[in-house]
């Protein structure tokens, strides 16, 4: 990437709220194209809100957010949805929906009004499901899927959406070790194949250490450090972010920055 190319996603002085108290209070973030960026921070630090602002689920209350140098709030919504896919932490399904139809929703930003999905849309959806190893679930009711299956189905949907940016909210929370590994392997492979920019919010410092090329540390709605993981994931920064001691300091249960056995994922 040339030095002149704008960041894929960039926020300056971003302010956002959910009606009442501000959650983001002048946040800065820069995520270059092709990065895997991990956003870390305490509960309530604004991680998920930042993701939702990028996904245009939460409105920008102030400051400037840009996608490839263009103002995000000036872009047509459908166009943003063609470029940015959001994978929520969990979705509570009230009505029955076939898994394939859920994945086909990823084609909605390309659909024309009332028209049903085209054969091409179905093909892309099924292809995405194959890539995420959930093709066999296509005809099942999505409500009956396990947590791990559902994560991969939503990943397939993001893939069917053909977006250059994926926003993942706590993608591994609640997954057992095997499903976690499978999910991350899938994510890693697709990222490698397509060069998708990934922004993921997580509580797992170790995951950021293993997977991310870039790390953002959030506290009280502001960024306290961002950059490549080696320079950001220092004990001092992490202690500042979480207010908890890191290995070798104070507690036998202290956090460690990056040591889970995920060798195959190491870039």
């Amino acid at each position, binding site marked *: 990437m040339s030095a002149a190319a704008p960041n894929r996603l960039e926020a300056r002085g971003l302010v956002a709220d959910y009606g009442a108290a501000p959650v983001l209070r002048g946040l800065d973030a820069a995520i270059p194209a092709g990065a895997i960026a991990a956003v870390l921070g305490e509960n309530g630090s604004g991680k998920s809100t930042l993701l939702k602002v990028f*996904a*245009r689920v939460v409105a920008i209350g102030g400051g400037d957010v840009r996608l490839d140098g263009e103002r995000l709030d000036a872009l047509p*919504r459908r166009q943003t949805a063609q470029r940015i896919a959001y994978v929520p932490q969990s*979705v509570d399904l009230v*009505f029955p*929906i076939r898994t394939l139809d859920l994945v086909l*929703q990823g084609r*909605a930003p390309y659909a024309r009004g009332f028209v049903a999905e085209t054969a091409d849309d179905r093909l892309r959806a099924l292809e995405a499901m194959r890539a995420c190893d959930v093709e066999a679930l296509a005809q099942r009711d999505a409500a009956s899927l396990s947590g791990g299956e559902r994560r991969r189905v939503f990943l397939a949907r993001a893939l069917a959406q053909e977006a250059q940016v994926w926003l993942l909210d706590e993608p591994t929370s609640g997954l057992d070790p095997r499903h976690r590994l499978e999910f991350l392997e899938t994510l890693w492979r697709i990222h490698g194949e397509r060069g998708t920019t990934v922004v993921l919010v997580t509580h797992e410092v170790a995951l950021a250490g293993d997977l991310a090329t870039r790390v953002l540390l959030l506290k009280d709605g502001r960024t306290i450090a961002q950059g490549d993981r080696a320079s950001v994931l220092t004990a001092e920064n992490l202690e500042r972010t979480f207010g908890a001691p890191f290995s070798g300091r104070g507690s036998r249960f202290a956090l460690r920055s990056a040591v889970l056995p995920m060798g195959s994922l190491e870039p």
Partner: protein
Amino acid sequence: MRTGAIAVGVLLLVAACTVAFLVGGVHLSIADLVAGRGEEGQTARLLASLRAPRIGLAALVGGCLALAGAALQALLKNPLADPFLLGTSGGAAVGAAGAALLGLSPLLSPAAAFVGAAAASLGVALLARRGGRLDLQRLLLAGLIANAFFSALLLAAFSIASGEAARSMLFWMMGSLADATPRKVAALFPYALAGAAVLVAAAARLNLFSVGEENAAALGVDTERTKRIVFLASSLLTGVAVAFAGVIGFVGLLVPHAVRAAFGNDQRTLLPASFLVGATLVVAADAVARAAIAPVELPIGALTAALGAPVFAWLLLRTP
């Protein structure tokens, strides 16, 4: 859209209309209607001229209420949403009754009912908001409160009104199709068509809403705009249905569930099919209301409530 579902809906509606046309306090003979001479023929034609507009009105009112319910359920991602339970029908009745009490022309009754319905929707939505989103429990509670309030207003209006006005208050409270005329059917039709067209056009977006509002927003939907459109269109459908037939509850709750169970939750099928099945339900219920203990007519609102309340209870038990 699944054409099979639409075909089933059309067949059901045609069957219900045929039966409703023939039954009632007096059985109508097609032979007399077509070829009847003298008194028999006259009676048959008179019956037909009374029943046909009533069936037409029943079909339009049922379609409007069911479609409004289906759209609200998807928009709010809530299987218990219904224009009656959310107080929209009550607001419409108060609007229409208020206009009648003020001596406004009956021509303004649909507009007044629409204003009442929209105000009720807005009020209930504001009451149910918590942290920027609509809370399911609060929504139902707010609907309950709104209904209690509107009932009180209608009862108060009923007690001050006299003669014809009092009768019309009762009409709005209990729901009735007895005053159907071809003119009323013709007057309701354009409103029903407009509201239905707007909602069916929003079907693809409502599919995304039925997974969640955030889901819709992340997939490129202008959610605030869609919410306004769907609230207004469903208020219009509810308002005009109430203006022409009074409060007929539970149609918007029952019908989408039945259609969803049979044909799935794709709104592009669900919305038009709900209109057809809603029309069928109210036509059939009205036929039962006329024929069950003829010559006395049962109030149709009581009939749909008797059917709807147990289903609501069942749904409530199943809702997590």
